[in-house]
């Protein structure tokens, strides 16, 4: 990388975000963990490319060449879950736009700070727009045809003497549909980690499980960070009666044993989906960011620059969101990273106890299957998946914390 050398000497001070970033980059373990997380994310995004029972390429005799795999990505009968459709849209967007976007992002580094921020914001918005567009197209697309069972079809055609060209992903199994004849197979070349009671490949489910865990972690945390930040900001900025009410609310929620409450509520919802699970987790966990943000506001409220802003006559919301809020970003980011880890743990505990979403491949649920069958692969594989994900997140969180506040480094 010769990029930094090519950068023209800038006279401006490095921004706070840059400082944190540099500090973070110095911590090798944390940086490694961040790359690990990125890998996990790519694994989740590209899961169908690794495992699908739809051939990437398919040609019967001299017929037209087609890609049932590509079509299946947007087949709502095959990928029924919103999470999968979302990740599939992400797959398409990342594949098409990922590299140019990364290049443009890096290029922006050479711009002066103001322009750089604007450029990057535009890039981000563009990315989100592309994603939404893909999802919208997907929703508008007509229902795909019912799927054919390609491996069976291939065997049938070949038995008739018709030559078939079929290229499958490395793991030619569906994450959802089991093959009865292969139920509870031991690990083999075809199924590196064996199959479960329904004849589904364990490795494939493990990979798709990453999608579920990451979604739950990220979305639940985003949700509760939003709630917590707003409430904390209100409490900290206005103080007085508002603060009192919100404080009481925080106190009440903290006192309720969260796992007990989560389990009870989850059990009383009849058609639990991962959406419910995210909401429940968020409803219990928002107090941490709320307290952090409130504390930051209390600290900053009486500082000079806020007083100055107020004296100039800035409207209140500008003061709150433009001046104080950015200062809370650091601690919130740290607690969010740890929050994702604990949300993933909570979700897997729930599904381990049978109180999760039973229609999705969840690691906790797989581990429970391992417990009932005493099958080593079924115990260790999901267990390590959870362990690795949670560890990576904790390491990254540690790194962020150290980077933001060197005093906290122990």
């Amino acid at each position, binding site marked *: 990388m010769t990029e930094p050398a090519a950068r023209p000497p800038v006279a401006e001070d490095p921004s706070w975000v840059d400082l944190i970033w540099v500090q973070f980059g110095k911590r090798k373990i944390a940086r490694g963990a961040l790359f690990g997380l990125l890998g996990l994310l790519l694994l989740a995004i590209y899961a169908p490319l690794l495992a699908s029972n739809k051939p990437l390429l398919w040609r019967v005799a001299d017929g037209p060449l087609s890609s049932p795999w590509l079509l299946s990505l947007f087949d709502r*009968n095959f990928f029924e879950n919103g999470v999968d459709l979302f990740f599939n849209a992400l797959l398409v967007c990342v594949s098409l736009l990922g590299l140019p976007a990364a290049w443009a992002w890096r290029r922006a580094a050479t711009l002066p700070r103001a322009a750089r921020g604007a450029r990057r914001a535009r890039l981000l918005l563009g990315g989100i727009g592309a994603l939404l567009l893909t999802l919208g197209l997907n929703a508008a697309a007509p*229902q795909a*045809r*019912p*799927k054919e*069972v390609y491996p069976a079809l291939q065997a049938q055609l070949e038995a008739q003497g018709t030559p078939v060209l079929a290229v499958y992903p490395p793991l030619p199994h569906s994450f*959802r*549909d*089991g093959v*009865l*004849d292969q*139920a*509870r197979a031991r690990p083999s070349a075809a199924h590196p980690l064996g199959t479960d*009671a*329904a*004849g589904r490949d364990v490795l494939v489910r493990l990979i798709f499980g990453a999608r579920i865990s990451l979604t739950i972690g990220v979305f639940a945390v985003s949700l509760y960070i939003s709630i917590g930040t707003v409430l904390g900001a209100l409490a900290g900025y206005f103080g007085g009666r508002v603060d009192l009410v919100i404080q009481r609310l925080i106190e009440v929620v903290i006192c309720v044993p969260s796992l007990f409450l989560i389990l009870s509520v989850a059990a009383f919802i*009849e*058609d639990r989906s991962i959406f419910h699970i995210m909401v429940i987790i968020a409803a219990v966990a928002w107090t941490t960011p709320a307290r952090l943000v409130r504390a930051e506001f209390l600290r900053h409220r009486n500082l000079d620059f806020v007083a100055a802003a107020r004296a100039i006559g800035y409207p209140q919301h500008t003061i709150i969101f433009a001046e104080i809020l950015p200062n809370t970003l650091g601690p919130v980011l740290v607690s969010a990273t740890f929050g994702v880890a604990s949300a993933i743990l909570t979700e897997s505990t729930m599904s381990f106890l*049978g109180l999760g979403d*039973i*229609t999705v491949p969840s690691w906790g649920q797989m581990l429970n*299957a391992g*417990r*009932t*069958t*005493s099958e080593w692969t079924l115990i260790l594989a999901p267990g390590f998946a959870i362990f690795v994900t949670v560890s990576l997140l904790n390491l990254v969180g540690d790194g962020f914390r150290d980077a933001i506040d060197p005093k906290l480094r122990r």
Partner: protein
Amino acid sequence: MRQSGQSTLLFISLGLLTTINVINSWQIDHLERLAIEDSARLAAIEAQLRAGVPVSGAATTTAAGPAARSAQEAEALADPKNLLRAPTRPRVRAAQVSPGRTLRMQIGQDPQGLNPLIAKGADVNEYSTYFNAFMATRDIGEPERWVPDLAVKVTTDDDLRYRIELRKGVHWHRPAVDWASGRYDWAKGPGPDDRQPFTAHDVVFTLDAIRNTQTAGRVSDLRTYFEPVVAYRAVDDHTLEIQFKEKAYTNRSALFEMPIIPRFLFSVDEDGKPFDAATWGLKLNEHWYNQKAIGTGPLQFVSWEPGVKMEFARDPHYFGEPVAYDRLLMSVVKDQNAWPRKLKAGELDFIYLQPEQFKTEILDDKDGVLLDNPAIKRADFSLFNYFYVGWNADRPKFADKRVRKAMTLSFNRAGVLEKVLYNQGALTSGPFPQQTPCYDKSVQPLPFDLEAAKALLTEAGWTDTDGDGVRDKVIDGQRVPFTFTLITFGSSSEYETIASTWREDLLQIGVQMQPLPLEWSAMLKKMDERDFDAFTGAWVTTWEADLMQLWHSAEADKPKSGNRIGFRNAEADRIAEALRLEFDEAKRVELCHAFHRLVAEEQPYTFFYQRERTVLYWEHLNALEFLQIPPHRDVRLFSFNQPASP
């Protein structure tokens, strides 16, 4: 220097103290052990004394029972008008009795309670057969035959008014309370061990309780059968009369198999004060003795610690053949995976196998030695139940019987039974248990035949007109594709597998099915509101066939009824009504067979299979016998090869 001397002294004295303490504890422990042994010996002697038998052998325990039993009974059985007949075989042979043994079994969960009138659940029903006796029971050799239990003679002229003569000299078990406290002295009766006598007034009390709408729980189910009761009274202490409004075959079994509770205990609060007449039904629901058991059966209740264990002991004063062991210990083991491990470790005498375990322990067991121990044996028996898929007949799609038949044909039942359920059951084609004569063996389950299913769908007007791979049809002027939702019982992963395999097959014939796993309460709500296309379900069946609740069209329009699928068929109504009134066994079988053929043709349900269970047991239990009739596992029949080793 001085300081170190002091600390040395301190350490030495501490060490000494510790040693003394250890010796002391050891001595106390030893004393405790002696005391325990003594009290065990004393208890044994006391038990034998109470049984009125000199301290000697075991086989004689039974001597007093049958002799006293037969006098009144023999006379009653001689009466040709008696509906009850002599049993074809006894439940226990005297030679099998092995004193000092404890039968140890596992239960997966605690029952809701032990009052058989209040607590709901198949488990309570089963346990109540251990500690309770009934009016009459089905003979274990010939289930059509009713044999005397608490009643020795039942007569009727018109099947409306029954006159029942009760067994004399029967006493309730001694309530399991803290007698030493003196608080329960009011519960003492004149019988042996201060027991209270069993009389006709107890039966009247039970009937009062069943008909009191304040009571809730199992009585809800019983109440349906006793709603047509017009009058009942105790003629004297051992004679009872009861009159029904309508003649029905079910009246007898309702009467004979009704659980009976003692008046002296359940009509009063813990201090012996009678409940108020206005609210006694509510009090009964929360009665202080509901968590304990009392009855007149072969085993008497000792203790129950929820989540931990439940214990019963042989009742020395039981009027019938006593059980062959001294105690019955049921430990609560919620984790089913621990069952085989506990059996192997010798913590249990026998266990059920779950389908998964059946696969690991039996199908995958290459050497044929169960749990790697040659002393562990296996037994199988078939339960009275069937699994099915119900089709909502009120939905236009499934109103056509050809469509329902096509659904059945497209469901690979044999394959699923073999691969998912490991052949732990038999395919079934009708609503009767296969062990009963009602099941018409000539009606074969439909085969798995996708081609035939396609043909039937085409014939019913479902074709793929727009080429999207899904069949469609014009209904009420609208073109609807053949898609439907199958509600499955979500708490079990079996159904997930079953639904996903079936879906693949349905796609081959141009039908889109969407499985929807729901928990029981959510499922029940959907069914109550008739808001479903199809669902997976199971019914527990009985020896006696009764079709009114599930199949009569009058039930189809009632909210929350058993006829959830809205099955309406004039011929079925006729058969169901006729069966209620038919008392002749041969004619009943004919009616059942006619009904069986009818449902095979109509396919209101896709009948799936009847479940079997496998039991593993130690060979120190005599070859286990499982009854044809529920409860199939009758622990009263179990016995040991040899007495306990000292």
